[in-house]
Structures are given as structure tokens and as C-alpha cells.
């Protein structure tokens, strides 16, 4: 079987597997936990301070760039309230008004330089919501049709693709790590811009006005990503005194890393993950922990190979980093499970201890150099803690001894494994 054919098959299988994990795992009655009653008040106190992960790029977008994104939303929504109120169909009127309100709400974000890249990313969808309103009203007035939108889509899709054609990874002569992370963000945005302006998407509305609106919304969403990528790159390049092309170096590093993670593009086998232990770990935190780390490794490997095959080497490197860190964490976790760890806890105490250890490891990781590479991985340690904390606050946890314990353990194990991978990638980039 060819590499691509095999990969396609595996991807399809993997999707089904992920669906199983995401949709049904928490519905399992978890017989192992039935006899354990956890102190709900103790659980409720678990969420506490969580370190923020700063943006993993050396050069932030300019203030003018963020202002332009704000202005895009404002200009698209300019004078739309009166026009919306004149739409006779109450459902169409409501949809237009709702999108407009959502877009306006996003304008209230902070313009702090340290979070500017996140603020800008947070304005991509609001720009599309504002376009939904703008285009919908134009369609209502008979000034915009689906055919007009098709031409617009073609234009933006071509522009988005052209941006990544013959892309050059230029950076400062002494900073390949910074160049990698900056370009990973830029190319990531560019890739998203291409995907969102593709035509093979399914749409919701048959109503003419709303259909034109949703078509225009998608294109604006992709356009926003592509425009932001292009503008951030222009700004980044303008900050370089003595630009150096890192294309060959990134290619070499990607060759090395992707070769190592290629065995993990196969969807994880849950039964195989749970086997090889002297005890039965089914329905325990141990099983969940191993599944989550294996899924993280698979996801990173799959994305790395896709980007590598497409020549997007900066993205391939950062995704391969994730896969390698998850692989190392998985090996460590298997060893711990073999030693008896992560069975169903008898009280909240072990869960709390795991969270404390995870947060401490995350802090240590964030103090590790080089910070920009570390931050690319730190999100995979922070997110499980954040998600578990959120589930506690929203009272949606059905199996604390399995789910919460495993989520904190994933963070703990990932944070512990990351520094070695960061060092390896840094060494490869600077050598």
C-alpha cells in the first residue's frame, strides 16, 4: 500500500476513534468508580491559579495591525442596525442581529502588546460575523449574489495560496529559534486561510439572504487569517537588520524529526495501550492517561507529516515536537502505571496532589530556555489543567477519579517530558 493510501485509511479510522473518545467516554458508567464517593466540596476547591503561557513569537503584530482588524469589524457593521430592523422576516432579522452583536462584543478585548497576537487571532471570527451582517443586508437589497461571492472566493483563495508559494523562512542571523516560531505562527495562519476559502464546504441556509451571508462569512474568515499572515510576515521581515534564509536548515531539522515520529501516524489501539500490565487498568485514570497521551502523539505526528509533505517545514517541526514530547511522556506514564500508579483513587487527595504537581511542572517548564520553543509545548500541559478546572467549575465532571485525575496527570507527564525535546530541537536548529 502506498504511503498516502495507507495514511488516508488510517486517518479515516482515526477519526472514528477520536469520536469515540470525545463523545462517549464520559458516558461510560465506569463501574470501577461506582463505589467511590468523592467529597464534592474538596473537588470544588481544586481549580486555582494557573500560569499563563505567553505568545510563542518574538515579534508581535503592530498596534496598527490590530487597529485595522477592529476597524474592519466596525466598518462592516456601520449603520447596519437600522437596516436590520427593516428586514420583514423575523428569523432572518434575528440571525443578522445576533451575528452583529457577537462581533461587536469581541471589540472589547484588551490591546496589550504582550497579548496582541492572541487579540488579533481572536478577531478573525468576529470579522466573519460582521461580514455575515454586511453581506446579508447587501443580498437583501439585491446588491450581492452567490455568484458575486464565488468570484470573491476564487480571488481570496488564490491570494491565500500564493502567499505560501515559494515561502521563504527569513530570520535574524543569530535567531533560528525565533524565526521558527514566528514563521510557524504565520504559516499556520496562512494554511488556515487557504482551508477556509476552499469550496468543498457544506452550508446551512437555503434562504437566499442568509446563504449569501454565510458564504461571505466563510470567505471573510479565511481572508482575515490570510491577510493577518501576510501583514505579520511583512512586519517581521521589516524588523530584520541582516536577514538570513533558514529554509534549508528547517528542511533538514524537519527531515530528522518527522522520520522519528512517522511510526506514530497510525491511530492508537486502545486495547494495545491497556495491555502489558500485571493489573487490569480498564476504567482507571491510568487507561485514560495512556489514551490521552497516545492521542496527543498521534495528532502531532499526523499534522507533522501532513505539513512536511506539503513543504511547510516550520509547522512540521513544531507538530513533531508535540508528538515527540507526547511519546516521551507516554513512555514515562507506562512505567509509572506498571509501578501501580493512577488506579482509581480513594479520595480527592491524590487528584489534588496531581494537579499541584502538574502546575509546578508547568511553571518549571515555562522557566526553561529557550522560552519560545517551550511555549509551543507548554500549551499542551496547560490546556488539560484548564479544561479539568473548567469542568469542575461548571459541575460537568461525571468521573473525578478517572477523568480529572487523568487530565492533571497528562499535564504533569507532558510538562516533565517537554524540556528534553525542546533541547533536542534547539540543538538541531542552532547546529
Amino acid at each position: 500500500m502506498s504511503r498516502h493510501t495507507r495514511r488516508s485509511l488510517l486517518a479515516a479510522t482515526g477519526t472514528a476513534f477520536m469520536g469515540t473518545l470525545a463523545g462517549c467516554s464520559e458516558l461510560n458508567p465506569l463501574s470501577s468508580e461506582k463505589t467511590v464517593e468523592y467529597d464534592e466540596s474538596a473537588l470544588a476547591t481544586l481549580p486555582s491559579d494557573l500560569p499563563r503561557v505567553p505568545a510563542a513569537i518574538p515579534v508581535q503584530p503592530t498596534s496598527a495591525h490590530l487597529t485595522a482588524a477592529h476597524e474592519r469589524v466596525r466598518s462592516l457593521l456601520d449603520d447596519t442596525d437600522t437596516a436590520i430592523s427593516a428586514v420583514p422576516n423575523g428569523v432572518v432579522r434575528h440571525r443578522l442581529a445576533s451575528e452583529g452583536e457577537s462581533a461587536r462584543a469581541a471589540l472589547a478585548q484588551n490591546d496589550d502588546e504582550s497579548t496582541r497576537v492572541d487579540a488579533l487571532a481572536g478577531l478573525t471570527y468576529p470579522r466573519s460575523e460582521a461580514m455575515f451582517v454586511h453581506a446579508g443586508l447587501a443580498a437583501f437589497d439585491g446588491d450581492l449574489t452567490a455568484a458575486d461571492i464565488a468570484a470573491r472566493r476564487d480571488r481570496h483563495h488564490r491570494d491565500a495560496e500564493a502567499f505560501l508559494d515559494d515561502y521563504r523562512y527569513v530570520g535574524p542571523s543569530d535567531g533560528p529559534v525565533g524565526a521558527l516560531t514566528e514563521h510557524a505562527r504565520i504559516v499556520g495562519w496562512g494554511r488556515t486561510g487557504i482551508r477556509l476559502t476552499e469550496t468543498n464546504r457544506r452550508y446551512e441556509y437555503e434562504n437566499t439572504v442568509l446563504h449569501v451571508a454565510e458564504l461571505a462569512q466563510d470567505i471573510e474568515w479565511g481572508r482575515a487569517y490570510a491577510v493577518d499572515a501576510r501583514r505579520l510576515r511583512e512586519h517581521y521581515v521589516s524588523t530584520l537588520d541582516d536577514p538570513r534564509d533558514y529554509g534549508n536548515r528547517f528542511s533538514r531539522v524537519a527531515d530528522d524529526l518527522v522520520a522519528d515520529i512517522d511510526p506514530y501516524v497510525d491511530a492508537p489501539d486502545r486495547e494495545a495501550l491497556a495491555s502489558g500490565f500485571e493489573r487490569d487498568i480498564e476504567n482507571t485514570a491510568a487507561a485514560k492517561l495512556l489514551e490521552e497521551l497516545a492521542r496527543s502523539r498521534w495528532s502531532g505526528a499526523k499534522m507533522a507529516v501532513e505539513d512536511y509533505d506539503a513543504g511547510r517545514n516550520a509547522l512540521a517541526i513544531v507538530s513533531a515536537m508535540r508528538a515527540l514530547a507526547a511519546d516521551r511522556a507516554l513512555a514515562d506514564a507506562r512505567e509509572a502505571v506498571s509501578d501501580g500508579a493512577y488506579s482509581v483513587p480513594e479520595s480527592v487527595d491524590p487528584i489534588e496532589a496531581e494537579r499541584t504537581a502538574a502546575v509546578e511542572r508547568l511553571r518549571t517548564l515555562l522557566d526553561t530556555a529557550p522560552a519560545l520553543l517551550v511555549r509551543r509545548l507548554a500549551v499542551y500541559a496547560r490546556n488539560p489543567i484548564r479544561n479539568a478546572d473548567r469542568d469542575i467549575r461548571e459541575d460537568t465532571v461525571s468521573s473525578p477519579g478517572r477523568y480529572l485525575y487523568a487530565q492533571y496527570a497528562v499535564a504533569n507527564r507532558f510538562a516533565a517530558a517537554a524540556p528534553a525535546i525542546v533541547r533536542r530541537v534547539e540543538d538541531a536548529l542552532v547546529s
Partner: protein
Amino acid sequence: MALMPSRRALLASVGTSVVTALAGCNASETDSATPDGGTLVTDYTVTMTRSTGEHPPIVAPREDTGDAGNAEETSSTPEPLSIHTIESESGASGFEFADDATNVATVRRLVSETAYASESVLVYQTRIGECYRLKLNYITRDPDGDPDVDFCQVIRDAHTACERRARDHVAAFVRLPFPGSEYGGFSLGSGGSCDPIPERYRNGSESA
């Protein structure tokens, strides 16, 4: 007037409740409820009548309670028709419509011009948001020949004056290209969104 056999009414309502019960599940779960080997029915005709306010467009006939032998439990005012099949000219003759029902002439023409020896008419009446219209999404037949009619709802034209929470009534008359004697029951989907025709029907054979 020859009303639909009670057995079929029962089967039809069961079919509706099954599909309704599945409406919250994902596509694969809904699809799995339909037996494999069915065919897509394309040669059908559908027309709709609509009324505003409390009264549905079909005034008569009304629901057959099917308990004529137990008069004490029979409601004095039968419920408005919801699901019904017309299998003969005599069955077609008893339809009466509300004064404000729209498109009545077209509906009467569809019913009266049906060749009941080789065709039949399925009737479905329901409430619908004032800003929505009912759409027949697709029809399939299972291996036993029973039709599965999938309706969905579409937002009406933006220039149509309507309120988001107001409700109308709508009745659909679907002429099927086979007689009532060819099927013992049917199922009816009345969910909200107009999902694509399942892949297995799009690539498979089509009935006449």
C-alpha cells in the same frame, strides 16, 4: 369515505415517532435506522397548503380514532388530521379546507388528478414557525416497498413579513408513484435541517 386502514395509521405514527426520537442524534445514528438496500424515489409530486392562526388548513377529514366500537371513549371532536394516505377516488373526495388556507386549488388538482390504480397520495399536516416553510427533502423506499418521506424546514424569503415565535399550520400532499396496495406502512421524518440525501441513495438505483 374510505379512510386509511388503522394498521397503516399505526405504522405511520410509529414511524414518525421513531424518526422524531432520533432527531437529536448524529447523522450516522439516524441513517442506521433505515434498512440497507432502499432506493431513492424521485418521481413524486408535492404541493403544500398553509393557514395562519389556530386552525389547520385541512378541516376534514379529521383523525380516525379507530375506536368506533367503544363510543363512550370516543372524543366528541376528533383531532385535526396529521398523517394520512389517500388510496382511491372515494378517499380523495372528502377533503375540506379552511377559508384562509393557501394554494387549495393546486392541492385539489393534485388529489383529483392522481391515478389511484398506480399512484397514491400521502398527507402530512403539522404546525410550523411563521418564518419557515416545509420542504420535502427526499423520499426513499425500503426493501419491503414502504416509503420513507423526509421533510425539513427552510427559512422563508427575507422579504416575507413574519414573527420569529409565531406559528402557522401547513399540510403537504405528496403523490407517490405507486399505489397504496404496494406498501403496508411508511415512516416520516419531520426534523429541522435539510440534510443531504444519504450517500447510499445518491449512488444507488432510483425507482421510477
